[in-house]
């Protein structure tokens, strides 16, 4: 029988076994500390990954079933102007959301840190460590990326055939394409195989070539870390003075409740469950929620939004061989209003009206999985035999598309609160998400579409779809709900990722981001987690 009783004499208790928790646990254990991780979800057997892939491809099984998300455990409310599909956005289990992420890992640009209490140089060595830990395949061919001293640990994946189609049009427009840093093995690395092209990276990589944090959980366990699965933390308790956390109270499947004591506590459960746990842990000293003297816990919730467009060409484009992207463009990141100049005239400057807010950063992507996958088409088709084959041949082959991300600025009203009218399987109020997309974000989306359409037009694409300001959705990057800052009156954690209010409570998550940028957050989460672990180590 699985032992889910508390560890005695733990130095560090980490809540969450996703990338932030796994990397911190591994580092702290390597430094000789006694670490226990409490994970709400279960441990997924690697041997089952191909069956999970089948679930992802076959239409009988809903997308949430791939990693067993949803149900009573994961109830939530969406109360904002825009519905937020929370259960599609995160995985609870050993490995966390890296089990179903896309695996794109960029360093934030220097300008992204403008309002943070740390700058790019503070994080720079940790970025390099994070790239080594995740096994990033990349190349230093991005003229817009921040400075770096060392090569990527793995060579970049070569560009796709469809990238080469884009390259000609981009050349004529003066648009620069460059490689994507991927947390995906381009060759064998760290006891994981090279990518073998299953084509289902998100939501599942059967080969293990795509990094997922269960890999570092295993390494952490080899270094002595104990992982207690299916142990959702119900609340945190603190001492009489309200200065230190004394225990994490967690539930187990047998209906028991336990108290895990430790000298240091780290919250690494993602941008929604971390503020929820703090709000659930309110006390006489902290009537608005633990570590919430600032009132900022749960506030400033941000996500990235998708902008994209695509259609068909009168030539074969070779899509859906792999499930990841090999080329992107940061040219419109630091100044999204800029135009370009090329032999064909270039991308025009931003066309915004005076009253329209100026757009924020934009990242552009050149997709390798545009249009339908033949096997998925076959499984949902309404024809069989030769008729089906004719339809598949007609539907597959000449699709092409661009994607992209834009970010949101931090706004107080976008926030995570508790909905006491709905409870989870342990009787706790569920997280309530208040989310809307403001005018500036819509400007960024419109600008992204403007650039994408110019490139697609230059290419001669018959554009059939566009996802923009009125039809977009979140990229599932939860940021900002326990923001970092020097001023304890408006932020939750300091530059060391430690809460202002409690001396032994730290946060490792994109929840500490002050701004969202427009780049995928996981490498920054990993770098911050390693930095935080060093600070915890110093205190122990």
């Amino acid at each position: 029988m699985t032992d889910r009783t508390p560890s005695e004499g733990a130095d560090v208790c980490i809540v969450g076994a996703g990338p932030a928790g796994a990397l911190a646990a591994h580092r702290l254990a390597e430094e000789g500390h006694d670490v226990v991780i409490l994970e709400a979800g279960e441990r997924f057997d690697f041997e089952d990954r191909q069956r999970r892939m089948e679930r992802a491809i076959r239409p009988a099984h809903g997308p949430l079933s791939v990693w067993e998300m949803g149900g009573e455990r994961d109830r939530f409310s969406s109360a904002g102007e825009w519905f937020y599909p929370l259960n599609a956005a995160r995985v609870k289990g050993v490995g966390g959301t890296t089990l179903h992420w896309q695996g794109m890992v960029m360093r934030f640009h220097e300008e992204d840190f403008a309002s943070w209490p740390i700058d790019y140089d503070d994080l720079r060595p940790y970025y390099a460590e994070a790239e080594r830990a995740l096994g990033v395949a990349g190349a230093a061919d991005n003229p817009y990326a921040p400075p770096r001293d060392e090569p990527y640990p793995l060579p970049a994946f070569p560009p796709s055939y469809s990238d080469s189609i884009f390259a000609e049009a981009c050349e004529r427009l003066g648009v620069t394409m460059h490689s994507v840093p991927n947390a995906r093995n381009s060759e064998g690395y760290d006891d994981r195989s090279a990518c073998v092209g299953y084509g289902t990276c998100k939501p599942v990589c059967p080969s293990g070539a795509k990094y997922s944090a269960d890999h570092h959980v295993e390494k952490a366990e080899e270094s002595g870390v104990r992982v207690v699965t299916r142990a959702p933390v119900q609340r945190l308790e603190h001492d009489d003075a309200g200065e230190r956390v004394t225990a994490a109270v967690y539930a187990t499947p047998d209906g028991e409740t336990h108290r895990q004591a430790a000298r240091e506590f780290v919250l690494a459960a993602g941008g929604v469950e971390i503020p929820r746990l703090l709000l659930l842990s309110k006390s006489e000293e902290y009537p608005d929620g633990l570590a919430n003297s600032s009132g900022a816990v749960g506030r400033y919730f941000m996500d990235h939004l998708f902008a994209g467009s695509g259609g068909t060409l009168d030539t074969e484009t070779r899509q859906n061989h792999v499930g990841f992207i090999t080329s992107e463009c940061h040219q419109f990141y630091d100044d999204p209003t800029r135009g370009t100049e090329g032999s064909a005239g270039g991308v025009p400057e931003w066309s915004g009206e005076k009253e329209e807010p100026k757009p924020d950063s934009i990242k552009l992507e050149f997709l390798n999985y545009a249009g339908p996958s033949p096997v998925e088409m076959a499984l949902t088709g309404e024809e069989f035999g030769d008729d089906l084959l004719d339809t598949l041949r007609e539907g597959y082959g000449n699709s092409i598309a661009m994607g992209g991300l834009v970010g949101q600025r931090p706004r107080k009203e976008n926030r995570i609160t508790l909905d006491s009218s709905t409870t989870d399987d342990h009787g706790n109020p569920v997280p309530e998400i208040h989310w809307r997309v403001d005018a500036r974000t819509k400007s960024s989306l419109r600008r992204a579409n403007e650039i994408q359409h110019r490139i697609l037009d230059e290419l001669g694409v018959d554009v059939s779809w566009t996802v923009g300001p009125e039809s977009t959705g979140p990229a599932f990057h939860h940021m900002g709900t326990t923001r970092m800052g020097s001023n304890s009156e408006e932020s939750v954690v300091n530059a060391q990722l430690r809460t202002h209010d409690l001396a032994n409570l730290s946060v490792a998550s994109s929840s500490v981001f002050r701004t969202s940028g427009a780049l995928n957050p996981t490498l920054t989460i990993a770098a911050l987690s390693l930095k935080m672990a060093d600070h915890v180590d110093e205190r122990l």
Partner: protein
Amino acid sequence: MELTRRDALAALAAGGVAVGTGALLEGNPFADGRGASSTDAAPEERMASLLAVAEVVYPTELSGVEEFVRTYALGRVEERPDYREGMVEALDTLDEYSKSWFDDDFRALDAETRATLLDQMGVDTASPAPEGADADRVRYYLVNELLYALYSSPTGGKLVGIENPQGHPGGATSYQRGPREGGDSR
């Protein structure tokens, strides 16, 4: 275009069945299915029924279908008795409809009538579901089972123009190749 044993093994891998390339996959997937009674079809008849479904849902330009389907189905159910039972029940369901509407087992009908039966059952528009209504289960356990096997295999992919279809671990070089090098063998 010919389906090969390699295609069957690749399709099995896409479903999480690890079969060594040297493994001998012979026999009948329904040979020791549970729930057999004197009124049930014999294992070889069930296999014939599955092949009869394949004849409807697979394109006519394929060859090697019998060995492909037999190998795939055997590997698929070898250690999954519940899955075998689902397939057996779906085959029995097909026969029930077939006997009721056309006075014969499904496998005994001509190909055109089989296609008509699937359409009349609503299998073409059904929502595949292992616990669903009759048409949903036939779609899940038989039709989509066979389509998944075919179109996630290298040969099935090539039929459509993609030699490394989703679900097949065909490496990380095919995506770099253009159409002329890519082996579009249509």
